[in-house]
């Protein structure tokens, strides 16, 4: 949640103005055909308009009524278009901010990178937009990185605050996991860039309906067809009953019944969902991924950096028998002086604070032994003293004997979830340093919230099972994978998926790529490698793994908003029947006045009020569609009960009140 970008106001003046114009542009039936409910509304609006013209020409006195109905039917369409346009406008504003990074980038394209005669750094200045896949560019201090790419030579500190909002610079270097750089663009084979593709999703230009949106559209289309049947067959039934009704009111009934509310807001809800994700600095490659996020059953979280702070801190010096704490502390201090890792620095700090050392001078003869992944040992050679510090098994392999109390201390540390670090001098074990994982303060309550959502959390760590169990217990995760290798993650994901569960994970390294691709929601870190980013279906610009939790909530919110507004839309119909049916037939059967329970002023005012309510409710619900129905981690049953009450029961009652109020207004100003 670290860098939430401020959302533009719900009805930002500029966005609203543009959306109002777009609403008219979207009247093009070819564009509306994507949305069957609104398309039908537009078609029948045109029919009523034709009747209005006829009434006008014939001067039969019906023009005032049919004109108003026609106007409100068009408003219904326009309001639906407006909702979509506002959502798109907000998405565009977001996208423009992202895009600003690339508009003024220039690239220094290397002319001949293979040149051996010292001319390989000669470049030409080109626009960042002209770069092609495979081009090599030079970036120097002060340059903007022109596009997404891979560092193939050199190392630099890069300020990525433009996209991540994180002011601390990050290191980018050739080889390894931190070789990817992002500019405004990624030069990809399909010609559109990574960020561009995602921007397009927010803007709605390339938006395709997501699977669930498609299924919902089918439900809505089905309902539309059912109500078409109801209204068309009502025509002969009315004639039989001696109550000839005009096509205009029949169409008014149809538009009131078909789910225009959810039909009009459906695409706005989808765009707003993507937009919310972007505001959390997460970009998804598809809307499908956002929906899948709502369905996630299991979260795979790396321990380091997600559950615990990235680095472990020295917490205690435990010397073996016969070595004083002071002597041990000094050896540890000397062995760590040249160690610039956070662990190394924490040892120095502990030696100073706990044992009162001041920074000693290693002297001229000191030989620094840097840490290598191969030996897993570092240290220093001083005259007559060979100090080594490192992983317990690595150091233990180099000493002659291992005291019992050393082993006991190591075991105690491991059981407590710490990391033991052994220190030796001239091949003799001096003791063990207790490095501790510090669990992030709020993480336990967030896992509890996830559990309430029905999402299981699994911690992945390279630690041994004992250590892992201790940290898992302290952090409150449901399960853990200890001593995890990349293939373990993949295997775990496959196993869970076999059991019918959906998995989300985040990762950054190239070795995470297979697991990211296998996971249903794979969030790649912005700082990760290109391979990782291509494998996942979301990229987190902040590289904050805890954001998986927000991503799940956003996915759920998207689906909930759709469901709630659908329920509301359908429930609304009941009241509209009670307004329109007596109005249609009260002349033929005066007895039907009994079901005019709202006591609406006149048949015409009843029909007009229902149509006006139907149009205005779209506008009224735009804020909810854009913000989304609030999600609470309280479990499905409680959530359903709550939403059924608000949107089901509320949807049943609200229109009775709304239509009555509109009727009072309509009859007061003699519109009908």
């Amino acid at each position, binding site marked *: 949640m670290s860098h939430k970008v401020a959302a533009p106001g719900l009805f930002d003046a500029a966005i609203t103005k543009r959306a109002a114009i777009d609403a008219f542009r979207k009247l093009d039936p070819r564009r509306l055909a994507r949305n069957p409910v609104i398309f039908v509304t537009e078609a029948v609006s045109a029919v009523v308009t034709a009747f209005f013209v006829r009434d006008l020409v014939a001067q039969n006195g019906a023009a005032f009524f049919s004109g108003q109905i026609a106007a409100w039917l068009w408003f219904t369409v326009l309001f639906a278009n407006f909702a979509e346009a506002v959502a798109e406008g907000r998405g565009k504003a977001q996208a423009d901010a992202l895009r600003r990074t690339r508009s003024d980038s220039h690239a220094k394209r290397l002319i001949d990178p293979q040149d051996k005669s010292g001319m390989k750094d000669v470049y030409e200045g080109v626009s960042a937009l002209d770069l092609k896949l495979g081009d090599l560019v030079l970036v120097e201090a002060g340059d903007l990185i022109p596009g997404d790419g891979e560092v193939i030579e050199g190392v630099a500190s890069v300020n990525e605050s433009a996209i991540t909002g994180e002011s601390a610079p990050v290191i980018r270097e050739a080889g390894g996991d931190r070789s990817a750089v992002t500019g405004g663009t990624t030069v990809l084979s399909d010609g559109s860039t990574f960020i561009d593709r995602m921007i397009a999703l927010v803007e709605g230009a390339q938006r395709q309906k997501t699977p669930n949106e498609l299924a919902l559209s089918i439900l809505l289309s089905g309902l539309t067809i059912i109500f078409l049947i109801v209204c068309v067959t009502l025509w002969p039934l*009315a004639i039989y009953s001696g109550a000839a009704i005009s096509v205009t009111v029949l169409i008014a009934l149809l538009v009131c019944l078909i789910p225009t509310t959810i039909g009009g807001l459906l695409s706005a809800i989808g765009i707003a969902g993507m937009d919310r994700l972007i505001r959390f600095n997460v970009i998804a490659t598809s809307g499908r991924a956002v929906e899948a996020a*709502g369905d996630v059953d299991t979260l795979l979280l790396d321990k380091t950096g997600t559950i615990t702070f990235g680095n472990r801190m020295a917490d205690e010096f435990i010397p073996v028998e016969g070595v004083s704490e002071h002597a041990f502390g000094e050896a540890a201090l000397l062995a760590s002086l040249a160690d610039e890792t956070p662990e190394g620095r924490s040892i120095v700090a502990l030696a100073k604070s706990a044992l009162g050392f001041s920074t000693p001078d290693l002297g001229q003869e000191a030989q620094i032994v840097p840490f290598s992944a191969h030996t897993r040992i570092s240290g220093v050679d001083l005259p007559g003293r060979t100090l080594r510090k490192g992983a317990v098994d690595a150091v233990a392999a180099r000493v002659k004997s291992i005291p019992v109390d050393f082993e006991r201390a190591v075991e105690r540390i491991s059981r407590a979830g710490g990391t033991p670090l052994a220190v030796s001098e001239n091949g003799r074990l001096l003791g063990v340093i207790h490095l501790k994982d510090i669990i992030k303060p709020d993480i336990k309550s967030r896992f509890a919230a996830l559990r309430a959502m029905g999402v299981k959390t699994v911690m992945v760590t390279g630690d041994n099972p004992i250590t892992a169990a201790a940290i898992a217990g302290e952090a409150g995760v449901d399960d853990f994978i200890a001593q995890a290798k990349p293939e373990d993650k993949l295997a775990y994901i496959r196993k869970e998926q076999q059991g*019918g569960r959906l998995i989300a994970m985040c990762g950054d390294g190239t070795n995470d790529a297979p697991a990211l691709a296998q996971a249903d929601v794979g969030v790649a870190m912005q700082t990760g490698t290109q391979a990782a980013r291509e494998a996942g279906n979301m990229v987190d610009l902040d590289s904050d793994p805890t954001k998986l939790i927000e991503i799940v909530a956003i996915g759920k919110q998207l689906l*909930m908003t759709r*469901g709630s507004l659908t*329920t509301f839309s359908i429930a609304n119909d009941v009241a509209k029947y009670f307004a329109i049916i007596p109005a249609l037939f009260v002349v033929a059967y005066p007895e039907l006045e009994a079901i005019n329970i709202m006591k609406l002023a006149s048949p015409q005012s009843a029909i007009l009020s229902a149509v006006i309510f139907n149009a205005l409710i779209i506008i009224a619900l735009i804020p909810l569609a854009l913000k989304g129905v609030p999600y609470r981690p309280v*479990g499905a049953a409680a959530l*359903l009960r709550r939403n059924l009450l608000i949107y089901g029961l509320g949807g049943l009652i609200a229109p009775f009140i709304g239509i009555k109020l509109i009727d009072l207004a309509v009859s007061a100003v003699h519109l009908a």
Partner: protein
Amino acid sequence: MTSIGLAQIAIVLLAVIVAAIPLGNYIATVLAGERNLLSPVLSPIERVFYRLAGVDPAREQNWLAYTMAMLAFSVVGFASLYALQRLQAYLPLNPQGFSGVPADLAFNTSMSFVTNTNWQNYGGESTMSHLTQMLGLTVHNFVSAATGLAMAFALVRGFSRAESPTIGNFWVDLTRSTLYVLLPLSIIVALALVALGVPQTLQGSIEATTLEGAKQMLAIGPVASQEAIKELGTNGGGFFNANSAHPFESPNALSNMLEIWALLVIPFATAFAFGHAVFDYRQGRAIAITMMIVLVAGVSVAYWAEAGGNPLLTEIGVDPSPGNMEGKEVRFGPAMSALFAASTTGTSCGAVNAMHDSFMPLGGLVPLFNMLMGSIAPGGVGAGLYGFLVLAIIAVFIAGLMVGRTPEYLGKKIETREMKLAMLAVLIYPLSVLAFTGVSVMLQTGLASLNNAGPHGLSEILYAFASATDNNGSAFAGLTGNTPWYNTTLGVAMLLGRFAFVIPVLAIAGAFAAKKKGAASVGTFPTHGPLFIGLLLGVIVVLYLLQYFPALALGPIVEHFALLAGKTF
């Protein structure tokens, strides 16, 4: 309403539930192909059938093959029944020498029996030869019900299986449903009816002397056996024209209660069997409870409407305390008539023990609305369950979204394909009922069959198409159905209601069976508790109210208010 009446209703429904729970267990084992208590006796017979038909019971079918087998079976059944009627004059066992049945009536009747509707536009004793009755109609009473049960279980397998290409073998399901479920139960019920005084003889008629000394011929025959499968198979085609109101079909209150029990027990048992089949008893229980609530609500409204008597008659001094007794048997009374009416339309049975046409407007609204809902409380044999599950799929889809997940029912994700198929199925009912009603009221030939004008006439036509589409078969009466127009359109409505509905359902079965089964968590909302029951009820009421409110407003609703205002039609 009297406490005795309410107690009678309660006793019957309680007896249904008490029997349905173990019967559901048994049906589940039958359709899972497991051994059960009747296997020692029946499995040798079962094997003979398979050998004769050349069916390998171990070989399962995918949904398309299953559907094709079902359709082929129905087409052959339809064609043979049609031929039998048309050619009965040239065939044996035709002592009365009936001529061939006219084409339109033969079409209507064949469709009626193949689709488990048993709409009767003919007078049995004056139209059909013994051969037609026995070889044609009675056989279909069994196999059309068995087909329904088979299709329901094909859908149930869609839920219980995971990543399976097949949904069972139609021939096996058909055989086992008939042999293990319908046959033994109808023998028991038939014997019980005989004990209660229902005739069972091969004799054609007996001569009786009336009190005045006149001679009278009373038609009798193998009534009890016919009666048993009529109710158990939710068929509804009676031996006599007066159906279960006839004293030989249902001589007393006890036989009446037994018949209501018989028509409700298998549909309720099927709901419980569903729970067993998906390994979660509570799922079946939730559905059974929902069905029961809809049924009880219908019975309550009908009983309340009938027990109150007719206000117009009360005004002119008739004692309202016995209730509205027009068209009711004195030995049954309003309570048992209301229960029978709600049960026969809540299932797709269609047998009647009173004239629905003579019910009060709101009392008549109950059977009508029950059928407009597609008879899902508890529905026809098999048909009730699969009809109900389609509604559950739609309800779960909307509700599932509201908890923030891709909707899933019993671990099966409801996606575009399933939604498409479910909506296709759901569309058939309003299309058939409303379109045929709409066209009928516009045509002279449609209106000519009406005996009543105004809203009551509309109710009669609406009722006929609801009954046909729903494969119910009960008639509101007051409409002369045996005309070329109604014979044909009602026949088509039956066809649509059965096959156009069930083909998408079987496709859903195939789609679900092929899907993975998702694991449940706190995040998936439970489909077995009161919340789910409430949701189902809400969706059912709102969905059907929205579809039929205008038509009902012009029929029974306006009639009700008109009656209160002292106007009749």
